[in-house]
């Protein structure tokens, strides 16, 4: 278990923020950390039922929610976007 800094841009926020997660955290937990630290500070709460996903900046597909940070092949300060998944 080790600290791992990630640069995240939550949907609606004006820029990237650096959050520190545990490298054993899953992507779901990373998303939650992002929500906890930025929603209600720079971004209004998302509508009920909104599903948030994370993807590496520039990627088309989201990261799997159960993927661990240590298994994701991230570089320190990897840039992630956390966004509301559009309903299919």
């Amino acid at each position: 278990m080790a600290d791992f800094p990630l640069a995240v841009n939550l949907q609606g926020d004006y820029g990237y923020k650096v959050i520190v997660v545990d490298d054993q955290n899953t992507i779901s937990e990373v998303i939650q950390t992002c929500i906890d630290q930025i929603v209600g500070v720079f971004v209004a709460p998302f509508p009920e039922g909104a599903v948030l996903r994370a993807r590496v900046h520039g990627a088309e597909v989201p990261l799997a929610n159960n993927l661990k940070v240590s298994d994701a092949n991230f570089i320190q300060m990897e840039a992630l976007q956390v966004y509301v998944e559009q309903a299919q």
Partner: protein
Amino acid sequence: MALLKMEEWYDLARETNWTPGYVSSEELYPKPMSNNFDIPLEKWEAFDEPYKSTYRDYVSAQRDKDVGAYSVKAALARADFFKNASPHWKALLALHFSAVCWAEFHSASAFARMTRFSQSPGMRNMATFGTLDEIRHGQIQIYFAYEFLKHDAVFDWCHKSSKTENWIIISLRHALDDIAHTRDATSAAIMLNMGLELAFTNLQFVALSADAAKCGDHSFATMLQSIQTDEARHAQIGEPIVRIMVENGKKKEAQQLVEIAFWRMWKQFSALSGIGMDYYTPLEHRENSLKDFMEEWVIGQFGRTVEALGLDLPWYWDILKEDISSFHHANQIGVYAYRATEWWRPIAGTSPAEREWLEEKYPGWNETYGKCWDVISENIRNGDYEKTVPAPPPLICNMCGLEVIGTAGDQWNAVNHHVDIEDRRYHFCSEPCKWIFEIEPERYKGHKSIIDRVFDGTIGPEPDDFYNYMGQTEAERGTDGYNYRWVDGYDDEEEGKKKYGTG
């Protein structure tokens, strides 16, 4: 009384040059300090500056300027202007003086390098006056700011800031070190004179001077105008150099120097002048927005100057046209939210009336950056002040040293550019910042942003470690300039009692 008229001897004096006899030309003008770009000396000797002055005329003119500026200051000294000024204007004065004073004084070093190492005698002459100008600019601004020290200790940062590791100062110092203080005389002249002075000083010294006069701060307005007359003269050094470079097959080199310097200084001025003009200038005294001014003076006038010299418009010109409507708005959110990391008292500048102005000048502002301010404002209305202070730090661009930002709110668009070198991720706010890095990664890769220093252990883990590293005692950490009394409009009755001028 002079025996000869100036026009009878001036060209002889300014063109006098000699072939060194005790050392070689290469020893007298070593390339790292001088750099002739392999252009023959006789081509450099064709340097022809538009504004010509003798030392005698220079001293006389500068004395008159100083008498003008200092006498206005003395006449207004008893007006207690600062005590009666709004928190808006106080924030603007604190930001200007603490960022600009030392930057001007440091520029004297760059001009002195041009004085000693320019290939052209005419340029050495002009750079001599430029050196004296910058010493003057450092001193006059420190002197004017000193008056405010008895009212507000924040003006201690006019002297102190350059010696700190505050994140804003790291950003500005890195930019100026890059373009002016670590380049040969020829390159520094092009970058400083064209990329900074010709391009941007009108923004901070002419536009701001007009706003200052409207606010009744005639002392500041006169000082700025006085400084700008010097800038207009010594900034002309860059143009003849660019002409010589273009005419002698070095257009590509000149182009790149202008492009690097312009973008680096755009980022600095977008923060300094952008926030100053669009948020800190009191609404009733605002006329032009940053965008208005940039479109006329920089995208228009400077763009035409660049092309007239035989260069092309910078490759990122379309990116710039977008940036003037976005970058400083995002930065202002961060400057306000992370206000404790600044040494002055930041202003939100987003009361309802101010938001209307911003929407008028930047259509779509309320649906983008305004959405972040909606959240901040709501927290303040609810008394949740701690929620206006974010926990996570911002990501900082590894070139300009400012936040990596995009578009907020309903048009959310995350922007990130990066380069990986030796297992280290370098982030950039824009393509041009990344492009500058990639031109010479060896030159830039060793520098660490304030955030890099947090995560590599340079800065300790406790909150006080961060502020101590940046040179801020507890008393020097910024707070809301209005103590949150702006959300639903300013307290007109109370603010109305404050006068802006001599009254």
